[in-house]
């Protein structure tokens, strides 16, 4: 059994959702404050680029605001927001592919301080493992990266994954299993 992040932000999100859905800007501001970082991290796994992840989340907030009243289970706010962010990240990465413009993450520059993809100074030994994972993710389709991000970073269950990605819960489980098998071989994880 895999432990995944719980849907617990330590605050009663139920009331926030209802108030925000009624047009309460302060409540929406609190939602932004609570969930922006999680959404950015999910988007980062899909995009592989912190800047694009920020773009995705910036694009996700207006969508979340417009559709907030459609959220029937306010306690599932976090996974719902993460799925909106993941979807925007998928759109951005697809658009980026169409334009055929390649971006090099800033930390990959030659020389200077060695930092990771998020700009943190980094142990070189850790960097190799990190790059392996980044490369393995880069070889996956954006939809697959979204699936992994929503499952293991946002903590969606298979039913929620299915809703977020337009698949059945069983189909989601099967796809996840295939993905994990592929990653196990690529990462040579012992």
């Amino acid at each position, binding site marked *: 059994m895999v432990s995944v992040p719980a849907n617990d932000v330590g605050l009663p999100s139920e009331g926030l959702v209802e108030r925000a859905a009624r047009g309460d800007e302060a409540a929406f501001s609190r939602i932004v404050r609570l969930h922006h970082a999680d959404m950015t991290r999910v988007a980062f796994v899909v995009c592989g680029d912190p800047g694009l992840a920020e773009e995705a989340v910036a694009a996700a907030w207006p969508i979340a605001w417009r559709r907030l009243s459609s959220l029937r289970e306010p306690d599932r706010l976090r996974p719902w927001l993460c799925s909106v962010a993941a979807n925007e990240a998928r759109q951005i990465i697809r658009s*980026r592919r169409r334009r055929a413009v390649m971006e090099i993450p800033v930390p990959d520059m030659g020389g200077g301080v060695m930092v990771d993809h998020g700009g943190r100074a980094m142990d070189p030994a850790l960097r190799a493992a990190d790059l392996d994972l980044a490369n393995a993710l880069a070889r996956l389709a954006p939809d697959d990266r979204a699936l*992994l991000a929503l499952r293991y970073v946002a903590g969606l269950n298979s039913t929620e994954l299915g809703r977020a990605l337009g698949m059945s819960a069983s189909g989601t489980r099967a796809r996840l299993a295939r993905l994990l098998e592929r990653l196990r071989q690529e990462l040579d994880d012992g």
Partner: protein
Amino acid sequence: MAEMDMDAFEARFAERLATYAAIPVAPIDADSIAHEVVGVRPGPRGSLRLVGLRVPAVAWVLLALATAVAAGLIAGALLHRLAPTPRPSLVLATETGLYLGEPGEGTQSGLTLLRDDGSFIGPRWSPNGTLIAVIHGPPIPPQPGTEGALPLTPALYRLVATDLLVLRPDGTTAFAFPGAVAGFAWAPIGADGASLLAVQTASGEIAVLDAGGRRVGGSGARGLEIDRSLEATLLPPRLVWASPTVLLFADARGVSAMDVASPDKLTTVVGMGSDAGPDDRVTALAVTPDGSALALLVAPCDTGCDGEVRFARLPREFDGSAEPGPDGRSLAAIVGAATSLSWQDDGEHVLAWPLLASSGDRATRLAASDGAVDTRDVVAAWTRRVADGSSRTLVVTRFSAFNDRHFDAWLMAADGSATRIGERSLGADLRPTSRAGSAP
């Protein structure tokens, strides 16, 4: 057994992915985000609460109107005292004309048509704000688009530069430099209160003109291949002034300096480096506001290639006696989108869209905060100080579709919010204020 292995792998993978995803997320202003987002679609009710009291929407409107009128009266009085005869600050070039005015909330909004006798590219105010230099060519014939909509720009049109015009703010021509001009650069204000103007032709030759349009110096082509494409013409030229009389320009060796007083003595201030690729070239230049250092963009092609921002100190003398300079210290690897360089007022940070690189080895990725400008569409971006002391970034974006290709001009505030100031625009500029000569 295999299933157990898989479960174990899944657990390790979940942990590893969570670690990978745990990037530091910069602190955000949640209130601003919420305010901006909520402003797009106001709440469902026609009233808001003020200290627990429900105030009708119409009362808010009346209050806002009254406040706006009062603020306008006060601001107007103050502005009149500070600047009795305000001068327009924005010059905007389009496919069919040149406009002057103040940036508004819409394309070409509130601007006055200054010239309509052709296409205009990349206008730049002189540092003292009295002249506008702009590349000029024949009008671009529009092709029919959707009825009632703006005409499309032919996807494969070629822009022809027939001359460089130097105009007064009333649209009259101060002087013209005939020929296929690839770029130009104003010098900082000299001792006589005027600026020299360096012009580079499509063949790579450089002419230096005084404020009256008379040639006072120049240099022959120095092995630099000039890209004649429209996009390249929109980019800042590979010319920049280090002082009122010393011109730096890119050539096959790297970056050379020429003192107008002794144009035959050239100094190579930055070399290309021993590890330079066969196609590597200097594609953009920018000198710090104090003239002490140089940023250069090195890439194997003019647009769309990955490249590198380098930084180099400039020598004190440009008399040709100095040894070839260093190759420049690498500041940041950049993406194909970056095509222009612009130092910020602090002299520490240089804008190489979408990066803000610093001479301290750091680079920050920039993005328009409201999503209006797509980072990947940016062709060029440069910063200008405006009258209130703050800075604005002028941005040119490219739109390309199967039957349409055009450029738009945007004005971006320090917070990243962007306003499109010109549609089908071929560049814009703001009148300089206190600091002269920092034009890209």
